[in-house]
């Protein structure tokens, strides 16, 4: 059966049978899309539906959620006004060569389940840098090795913040090496609720040229 299995996996666009080490929880966004596709009546399947992600309105037939493999740069409280400084790293090397990246979305999740009353919460400032130089383990990222991608002030009113990183992710794949990102969150008057920071993940949509070529002419 080994030959048959490898041929079938190949036709499914997989070079080999995956062997995951751990079963991480399924992100709710993927489960929701999976369930919505399952309930679609088969009569409504237009030929292109499987090659477009309607939920994000982009071409694509593969959606991956990458877990962050980075680490906090400081043990304990970072210096100065910083409440959090973390290196983020998403290993996009699993993307196959024939896949075209059409969207990459960073999600920063918080675990709080109570909200400050209006006016009482203090703002926090978020900055996201792109690393262009790897620092030594445990040392702060060198200033000149970072490029500011975005900065935003926010109050902890949302369980998650979402940022579009499609351009950066495409750049990682085509022009330069993926040396990760630096996330900084600072507070001008303390760090209210920073403990509710949960984790970050990167949702990437790609289009497999092999499987989404113009499909065979139908009768």
């Amino acid at each position, binding site marked *: *059966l080994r030959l048959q*299995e490898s041929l079938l996996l190949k036709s*499914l*666009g997989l070079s*080999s*049978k*995956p*062997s*995951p*080490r*751990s*079963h*991480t929880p*399924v*992100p709710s966004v*993927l*489960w929701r*899309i*999976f369930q919505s*596709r*399952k309930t679609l009546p*088969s009569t409504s*399947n237009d*030929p292109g*539906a*499987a*090659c477009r992600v309607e939920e994000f309105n982009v071409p694509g*037939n*593969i*959606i*991956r*959620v*990458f*877990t962050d493999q980075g680490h906090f740069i400081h043990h304990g409280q970072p210096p100065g006004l910083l409440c959090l400084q973390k290196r983020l790293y998403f*290993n996009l090397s*699993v993307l196959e060569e024939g896949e075209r990246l059409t969207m990459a979305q960073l999600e920063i999740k918080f675990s709080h389940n109570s909200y400050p009353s209006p006016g009482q919460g203090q703002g926090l400032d978020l900055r996201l840098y792109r690393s262009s130089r790897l620092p030594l383990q445990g040392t702060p990222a060198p200033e000149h090795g970072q490029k500011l991608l975005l900065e935003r002030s926010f109050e902890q009113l949302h369980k998650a913040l979402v940022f579009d990183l499609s351009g950066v992710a495409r750049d990682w794949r085509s022009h330069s090496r993926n040396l990760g990102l630096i996330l900084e969150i600072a507070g001008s008057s303390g760090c209210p609720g920073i403990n509710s920071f949960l984790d970050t993940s990167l949702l990437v949509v790609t289009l497999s040229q092999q*499987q*989404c070529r113009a*499909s065979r002419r*139908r*009768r």
Partner: protein
Amino acid sequence: SAQSIPITPSSLCRPRRLYISFSDVGWENWIIAPQGYLANYCLGECPFPLTAELNSTNHAILQTMVHSLDPEGTPQPCCVPVRLSPISILYYDNSDNVVLRHYEDMVVDECGC
């Protein structure tokens, strides 16, 4: 003239049930969902005359006619899928990322000659 084998409705070209169970092929460790799905396949006769519900092409009609005149020389038309559906598969990749992938043409909905 009448066919040598009696044509019963069940022997006409149509989808046949085929359920693919991923655990049967040992894939349950990396496929999250579904556990399996109805892929089906096409099987059956394309006899002369071809009736409308057999989803036939003009060429198939021609071929059945020639087959009825010269059964040894020209075979019956094939019974093949004419309408298929995609499926989605949720699975873990080698880096423990969760992947949702859509595959076209994985379920046979209709067959034709």
